[in-house]
């Protein structure tokens, strides 16, 4: 319980610091605060997808249902974080550029991840036998593993050139004030710890489901 209590205080504390202690980024103004939520959540989205895909590959190699539990749990959590990232990104775009969606490269790649997550989970939902579900979703995950690098890095760049109207992209390389950097990375660590906590609970639930099915 100590670990969980410290996570509670850690994130709460740094939240307060984000509002009261850290200065604002000149260009972003008040919207700097979204940065502390949007980017960590986007990072967890990508990290969870990588976690899910790695465990899918491990399942194909070792055929241990434990890997399938992790692949599924990470994908479910990843989808939640991905929705949060997309929504917060869109709110931020509204505040910054006046429109909820303008195919900004980073927004686009996060949105594409949403499609991958949705497809993966829809596929799992459409298969009944657990061994077949684990195997086929792992094969799909491995195929997406090939597609995601192209999806994340190439498509936005190409897509960006398709819309020549110049878009200022302040979130490119902004040199962070040391205090902002500290708060940002503290919250990044906090959100990642939160992800691992939810993951562990979801995996334990999956084990229970399997045990009740088998018993």
């Amino acid at each position, binding site marked *: 319980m100590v670990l969980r209590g410290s996570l509670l205080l850690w994130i709460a504390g740094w939240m307060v610091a984000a509002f009261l202690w850290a200065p604002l980024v000149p260009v972003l103004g008040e919207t700097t605060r979204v940065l502390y939520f949007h980017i960590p959540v986007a990072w967890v989205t990508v990290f969870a997808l990588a976690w899910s895909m790695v465990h899918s590959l491990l399942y194909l190699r070792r055929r241990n249902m434990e890997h399938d539990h992790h692949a599924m749990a990470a994908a479910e959590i990843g989808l939640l974080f991905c929705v949060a990232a997309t929504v917060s990104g869109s709110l931020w775009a509204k505040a910054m550029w006046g429109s909820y969606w303008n195919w900004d490269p980073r927004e686009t790649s996060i949105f594409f991840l949403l499609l991958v997550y949705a497809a993966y989970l829809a596929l799992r939902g459409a*298969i009944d036998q657990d061994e077949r579900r684990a195997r086929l979703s792992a094969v799909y995950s491995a195929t997406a593993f090939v597609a995601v690098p192209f999806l994340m890095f190439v498509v936005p760049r190409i897509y960006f050139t398709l819309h020549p109207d110049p878009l200022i992209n302040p979130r490119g390389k902004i040199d962070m004030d040391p205090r902002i950097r500290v708060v940002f990375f503290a919250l990044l660590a906090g959100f990642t710890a939160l992800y691992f906590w939810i993951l562990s609970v979801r995996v334990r639930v999956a084990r229970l489901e399997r045990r009740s099915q088998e018993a």
Partner: protein
Amino acid sequence: MPSDGLNSRAAVWAILRKECRSEWRTRYGLNASLLFALTSLTGVSFAVGRLSDRTDILSALLWIVLLFSALASLSHTFVREVEGRTLTLLRLVASPTAIGLGKLLFNLLFLLVIEVVTVPLFLTLMAAPGPRWPAFLGVLGAGSVALAAAATVVGAIISQTRGRGALFAGAAFPVLLPVLAAAVSGTRAQWSGGAVGPELRLLCAYAVALLAASLLLYDHLWED
């Protein structure tokens, strides 16, 4: 006595021939897909009218028609095997890799047949400016290979799900997005006189990556 390893090449060729003969006999898949391509094509050109000057929109429309024609038809080769319960026979006579490659080549051929009909018609109906044929066909070819490779793996997966083909478009779309983006960008560059190289390299890289992954994944597709 059964012969040794070389049968996988013979198996791929035999499966491809069987697929073509089966498609020719039933013709169900081909007619449906050609009809789909033509209706979406006429729908698009009717709604948009002549667009000879906006080649960027033309490129996008062309590839959207091709993409959705592929999404409407390329899972059929697997769904048919599962629904006809002939997958057991196929798995007994050929290795998973041979099955995958045979079906992949068939999907590619199928796609090319659709393109032979749809692309010229598209260019005329939309009054598109004359394409730089080598660049245009290069992008079309590389894009088709990538489309077929992705569609084959995803088709094999969703053919074993409850909804059969229903999930195919949704599941295949994320994997096909890079092809759509690169192909549209390449076709656009070809029309606007730019270099097609980067997009072509990208499409080939993606097609090769998908093929390599497929060869490793085919073995896990049918195990029950």
